């Protein structure tokens, strides 16, 4: 299906289906996502984008088929190198952004698997354009600020594989641009990025491939119109 040159693959899906009762949220999806590329996943509401990302993140298991992440088909082995941003913020409402990040850092640091150190909370907050001195708990953030704090948590662990579910929703234009610059840097550092959005024009500048989903299937996976310089 995909015409990716055979580098090592960040994600390989083989006939993966996900059923909820008799409803198929994913239907025999076969695809490969190459290391170091940025994939923008488009599709209607209910097409199965979030389900796909949650599946790759290991939060749900496929009903049928095999899904192997960073070369490992066993769930949970690659946790330290996957970052997942969901619709929900995954942050504690009562803690400030800094406290949330510090706590999260503890769970990822000192891990025998990963040798790379983490970002400092201050750095990563600056990356998403949040003021690190803000002492308001996250529960009192506006919707867009919360979304940015959530992204900061994901970025902090310097994951190899980034799964971003609508990172720009509720985020204002200036901050979206800022976030895009960060993502572009990550892509340059050969991180793999899978990103869903309903604003393709926003994500286009960093897209290597555009992946379109429809009713639980990947109907096309094509190089983006303007692949910036680097060979696909």
């Amino acid at each position, binding site marked *: 299906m995909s015409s990716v040159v055979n580098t090592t693959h960040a994600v390989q899906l083989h006939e993966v289906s996900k059923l909820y009762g008799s409803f198929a949220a994913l239907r025999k999806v076969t695809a490969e996502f190459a290391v170091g590329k940025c994939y923008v996943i488009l599709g209607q509401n209910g097409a199965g984008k979030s389900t796909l990302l949650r599946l790759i*993140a*290991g*939060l*749900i*298991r496929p009903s049928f088929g095999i899904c192997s992440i960073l070369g490992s088909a066993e*769930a*949970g082995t690659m*946790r*330290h190198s*996957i970052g*997942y941003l*969901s619709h*929900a*913020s*995954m*942050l*504690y*409402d*009562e*803690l400030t952004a800094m*406290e949330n990040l510090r*706590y*999260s850092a*503890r*769970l*990822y640091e*000192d*891990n025998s*698997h*990963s040798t790379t150190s983490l970002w400092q909370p201050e750095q990563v907050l600056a990356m998403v354009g949040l003021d690190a001195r803000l002492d308001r*708990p996250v529960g009192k953030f506006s919707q867009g600020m919360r979304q940015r704090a959530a992204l900061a*948590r994901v970025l902090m662990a310097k994951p190899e594989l980034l799964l971003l579910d609508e990172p720009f929703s509720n985020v204002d234009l200036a901050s979206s641009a800022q976030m895009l610059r960060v993502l572009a840097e990550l892509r340059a550092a050969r991180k793999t990025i899978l990103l869903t959005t309903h604003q393709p024009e926003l994500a286009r500048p960093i897209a290597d491939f555009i992946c379109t989903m429809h009713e639980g299937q990947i109907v096309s996976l094509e190089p983006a119109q303007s692949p910036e310089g680097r060979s696909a």
Partner: protein
Amino acid sequence: MTYVRIVWAHLAKDLRLEWRSKDAINGMLFFSLLVVVLFSFAFDPTMAVSRQISGGILWVALLFASVTALNQTWTRELRHQVLDAQRMAPSPASALFLSKVLANFLFVSMIQIVLGPLFIVFYNLRAIGQGWLMLLVLPLGTLALVVNGTFFAALSLRTRNREMLLPLILFPVSVPALLAMVQSTTAILTGESDPGLWIRMLGGYDVIFLTLCLLLFETILGAE
């Protein structure tokens, strides 16, 4: 070492959250106070038998107080799907469990420290047996409640009717522990029998179930 640090990170987070909304602990304290007062309404403490039933009252009150508290332990992990983040983190799941047990143990102990003296005052108790043994029975009993409670609260976490389910699975499994608590407390208060056997049993129960929970927690957390 890393493990200890991770447990501490979890625990510190929980304590901070609790501290920030201090009233949880205030609430629990007041709750236990009320229970004592209420029970002395329902069961006349001047009755001759009050010494015999007060062990039961103490532990039933603590049981219900802890169920209310335990139900909330994991609730904060559910909001905004933080639990998904926990499931995805590379740190060992059992560390998360251990920290929750410690936090709950602290809270329930705090209740006891207030409840105990109140109890003594309201019910005019004086241990006829060896009173200092209560210092063994209370922590051991609390640990028994809290270990299983925390585990089953996690188990019922993503089910429908979460709050309903916890007592339903916790109570039957905790019966031996409850029995041991009540019996040893009564034995100490009345001085009629030897609490030693019951205390040893409590200790054994704690060790067995803590091990079991630590081993099985990963499975529970990972279940889709």
